[in-house]
């Protein structure tokens, strides 16, 4: 079963991330890299990706004439996707355990961030365009 683990945050939260020291960022990245390595070894890794900053986000809606309308104005409360992991696991519990591991990634001073990770199963009935 494939699951996507979504790491989200508000724009204010992302601005806080910019205040981290380079050492804290390095430690954080190293832990995330180690988790990806372990998932690769166990054959559960499918993909991971970080997204560019919320300030680059646009919202597009098709108009009647088919031309795109873009808008970059979002409510302050909006949660932006910061990054995700796609894993292929035997049970939902295993997906939750991996999410728990990601959640403990260290923040400033090496203290676990305990950030919330949203766990969602891929639909099995819908179209899948993945190569």
């Amino acid at each position, binding site marked *: 079963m494939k699951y996507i683990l979504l790491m989200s945050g508000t724009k204010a939260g992302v601005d806080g991330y910019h205040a981290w020291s380079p050492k804290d960022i390095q430690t954080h990245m190293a832990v995330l890299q180690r988790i990806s390595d372990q998932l690769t070894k166990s054959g559960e890794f499918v993909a991971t990706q*970080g997204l560019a900053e919320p300030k*680059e986000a*646009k919202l597009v809606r*098709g108009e009647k004439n088919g031309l795109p309308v873009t808008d970059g104005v979002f409510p302050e409360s909006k949660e932006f*996707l910061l990054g995700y992991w796609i894993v292929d696991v035997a049970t939902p519990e295993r997906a*939750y355990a991996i999410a728990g591991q990601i959640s403990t990634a260290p923040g400033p001073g090496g203290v676990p961030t305990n950030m919330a990770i949203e*766990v*969602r199963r891929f639909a099995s009935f819908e*179209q*899948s365009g993945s190569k």
Partner: protein
Amino acid sequence: MKYILMMNTMKAGQGIPNWASKDLQAHIAFMMSLNKDLRDAGELVSAEGLSFPDQAKLVRAGKDGVPITDGIFPESKEFLAGFWIIDVDTPERAYAIAARASAAPGPGGAPLNMPIEVRPVMSAPPPEMM
């Protein structure tokens, strides 16, 4: 440049299961045709649909590292319903593809004109962060 196009939905808006099967078929056919065109153009990296929000869980590690799951979300929360990752030459091309996805047909074949969030995906983190 790689972009992710995200289709978000509110929990209250998950009316898709109640659509007439003909409308649902037309919607899925539209999405498959979009995916085929993107694949033929060499622009499709991946496309996935997610299961409905009622199955979503939020996981936070406790102090002992044991995951705590919770499926309670505020009513205002947007749920990711599906996404496309595309590899295109310009942001304008990403917006044009998003606009096409936005116009996917809904009940009675009327375009949904749903909002599609377009975000550049990051390239590899800078070496000094690794």
